[in-house]
């Protein structure tokens, strides 16, 4: 079981630190699936959570600006809600300076990427981001009802 996993009667929490290696986000998704199964949450209820978690991890690892980036991830899941906390230790950025991507613009642009933040915001029920010189923290809530 991953580092720091705790089981309580109505909630399960998992904490894990992920290094930047290919597809490391799948380790987190495996944990997410197992927590959901433990709580009896049907697979179809966590489909969007999978995408949110995937985007949060790849975004943090790609944009932290660290030489050897890692991301600290914490899930707390109940039968009703998933809380996700993601933290990197990079150079930070100004969230307000990131424009929402537009498919019309992307079609004509060489850069087709840049969807991660928008997807996390759009698919979550609550999204908070704090970023500064010591890194970026993202807190997401996703209802599982």
């Amino acid at each position: 079981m991953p580092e720091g996993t705790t089981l309580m009667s109505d909630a399960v929490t998992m904490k894990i630190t992920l290094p930047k290696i290919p597809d490391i986000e799948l380790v987190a998704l495996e944990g997410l699936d197992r927590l959901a199964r433990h709580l009896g949450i049907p697979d179809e209820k966590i489909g969007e959570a999978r995408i949110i978690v995937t985007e949060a991890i790849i975004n943090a690892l790609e944009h932290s600006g660290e030489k050897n980036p890692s991301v600290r991830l914490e899930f707390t899941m109940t039968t009703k809600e998933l809380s996700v906390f993601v933290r990197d230790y990079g150079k930070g950025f100004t969230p307000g300076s990131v424009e929402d991507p537009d498919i019309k613009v992307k079609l004509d642009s060489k850069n087709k990427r840049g969807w991660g933040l928008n997807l996390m915001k759009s698919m979550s029920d609550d999204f908070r981001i704090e970023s500064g010189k010591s890194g970026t923290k993202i807190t997401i809530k996703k209802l599982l009802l």
Partner: protein
Amino acid sequence: MEQPFSLTSEVRENRLIITTSGYVNNVGGEAIAAEFARHFEQGTRHIVINLGQSRVVNSVGMSFLIEIIERLQDAGGKLVFTDLDPAVEKMLSIMGLFQYAGKEKTVGDALLSFHEAGKPGP
């Protein structure tokens, strides 16, 4: 754990059908784009991408599909997605891909939609 990415492709009536399996990440997206390009250069303009066996995708992988849509638009072609997991469908919808690409339940429905679109008007 989600399976590693793989794809198969077939051509039916000059329509390319790409079926993926496993995680569509940057490597998967690039592989889809490469398979598309190989057929596009031979004149194929109608593409079906069946994502039914890929319940985990990421936005980097999906960004390669925007490139496919761009090339098809310029050439008067069309892309149709099928067998979408509801979460993946929502993701593509948020990205705006269905403004430029179709979606159908099955590959058969997608092929039929090409036939319908190709029928002469009244």
